[in-house]
């Protein structure tokens, strides 16, 4: 079975390695230059000084100018990182979808399933070996992308936020395994290569979107952080890499005064105010408003330090889904003639 799998898929493997090499040819030089600039400009040290505390003194963590310079040179590469989000689905459509569907389309399943190897063993061997290949490809890809995007993540929105999270840590490996299992499963169901490939893309995007935008935020309960509006010594650390659900200004009685806003007052003077909620007249001075007496900023968020917890939960979900799909595929396989 190992020889058969190798003989049948060696071309695919070769093309995949060529594709990975081509990707490396882009990723390695740009990545090195990015890492270099990140350290040499002092941006790395500046961000490191801010640490991962949620609140920092006003004079710490102002790496704005350095970050701007860095972004000017490298933010164009962010789109490459986004492109990498879809890599797993390619593994799914080229390794997963044709695995059974092509045999059925060409009738060769009637040849190979009537040799001295049971259908179940054939399936387990092929799924296992291709799964292993997907695991290795996924790991190489995950490691490369993780390394490449580190500086972008550190000076940007952090690793745990939407899309960043998807090309970091171990989740890309789990997505790759899931994509392959999805391809195999749909290949068994549709029994045709092209429909299986098409539905694999659609289903992959669908499942990923639902998990990402609906399920993920509930993996762990969010944390709340209160910062009185009168506290001018501290400010939120924008490099903590947290996943911020909401920021608002809340009165001492617990009533939300401003949503999607931050406020700092010194006496009745506004030190800083930012609002995206638009519930307040432009000229109003909230610091002079009695309702803001004892008010505080409330941030609800997932700390960036929970990155690995989220990674393992997300990976666990996708690996479990992959296992479920393979199981369904095995059951369904018994009914094909």
């Amino acid at each position: 079975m190992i020889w058969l799998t190798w003989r049948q898929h060696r071309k695919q493997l070769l093309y995949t390695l060529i594709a990975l090499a081509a990707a490396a040819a882009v990723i390695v030089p740009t990545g090195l230059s990015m890492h270099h600039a990140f350290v040499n400009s002092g941006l790395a040290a500046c961000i490191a000084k801010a640490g991962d505390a949620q609140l920092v003194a006003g004079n710490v963590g102002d790496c704005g100018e350095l970050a701007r310079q860095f972004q000017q040179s490298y933010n164009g590469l962010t789109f490459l990182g986004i492109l990498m989000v879809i890599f797993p689905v390619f593994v799914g459509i080229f390794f997963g979808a044709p695995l059974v569907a092509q045999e059925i389309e060409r009738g060769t399943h009637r040849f190979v399933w009537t040799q001295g190897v049971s259908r179940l063993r054939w399936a387990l061997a092929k799924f296992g070996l291709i799964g292993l290949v997907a695991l290795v490809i996924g790991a190489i890809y995950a490691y490369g992308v993780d390394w490449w995007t580190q500086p972008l993540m550190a000076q940007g929105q952090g690793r745990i936020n939407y899309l960043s999270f998807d090309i970091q840590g171990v989740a890309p490996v789990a997505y790759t395994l899931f994509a392959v299992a999805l391809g195999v499963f749909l290949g068994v169901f549709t029994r045709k290569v092209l429909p299986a490939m098409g539905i694999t893309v659609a289903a992959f995007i669908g499942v990923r979107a639902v998990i990402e935008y609906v399920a993920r935020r509930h993996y762990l309960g969010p944390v709340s952080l209160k910062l009185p509006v009168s506290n001018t010594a501290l400010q939120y650390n924008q490099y903590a890499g947290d996943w911020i659900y909401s920021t608002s200004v809340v009165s001492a009685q617990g009533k939300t005064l401003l949503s999607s806003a931050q406020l700092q007052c010194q006496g009745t003077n506004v030190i800083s105010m930012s609002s995206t909620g638009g519930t307040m007249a432009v000229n109003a001075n909230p610091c002079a408003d009695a309702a803001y007496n004892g008010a505080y900023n409330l941030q609800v968020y997932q700390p960036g330090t929970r990155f690995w917890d989220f990674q393992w939960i997300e990976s666990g979900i996708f690996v479990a889904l992959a296992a479920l799909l393979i199981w369904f595929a095995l059951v369904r396989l018994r009914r094909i003639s």
Partner: protein
Amino acid sequence: MTEETALQTAGLGKRYGRAWALRDCTLRLPTGRIAALVGPNGAGKTTLLHLAVGLLRPDEGEVRVFGRDPRAGRAALADIGFVAQDTPLYRDFSAAELIKLGGKLNQSWDAGLAHERLAHLDIPTDRSVGKLSGGQRAQVALALALAKRPRLLLLDEPIASLDPLARHEFMQTLMGAVSETDTTVLLSSHLLADLERACDFLIVLQKARVQLSGDVDELLARHRTLIGPRETEAAALAGTASVIRASRTDRQSTLLVRLPGAMPALADGWRAMDVSLEDLVLAYLSVGVEARTETMGELAAK
């Protein structure tokens, strides 16, 4: 004579959705026979063969190959050689690679035999089989099935897509190979003419039902065409088991009948003629379900 049984089915049925592809299939194929599975397209031939080789799971009844369920595992599969319709092979593999593959997937495998056969037929083993002619590809598929040294060889319309010369060569190779061993063969075709000379056992399928099955000589011996005056039909039929097909003019009746045993005495003005295998198959293909049931009951009684 007690013969071992190669293939046996009892009440075998397979359904796709609500339509039965095969139903109430009860037959027994003794070892050492070359059996023709005949029926029009869609009669259930492929379904029966797929059930026999374990590609399909029956919806009712059971199928046994040398007493074993073909889906029971690789020991059962090891006895069966199978050439599927249109002889599917990995087209980018060379014949040599396919032979190597067979060696890796089967416990007993005679790679030398396969190479020898293909060399004898001047079929290149180093070219991908997708580049071979249809006839050569069928020969490769046959060589692979034979390399397994099966006790039962099943072939699904192996020659349907071949030209007449390739058909002839294929049948010749098959018969030559089988005569060296005691392999039982069951091959299907929608054309009896292809198989008539080679086969000594016949199974006729029509509309998912077995219309007739048995040893060819015995079947021929137990059927006659009776020709005589129409008014004395009743007298002529005394002593026969059933009428399979009747055609009548104003005065004369032509009846293809099944005999219970020896040929009974002929009524006045009647004569009996032997039937050809082709007549017999055509007659049974046009039989309705009622007649079939009667026939089967009779066979069971015997």
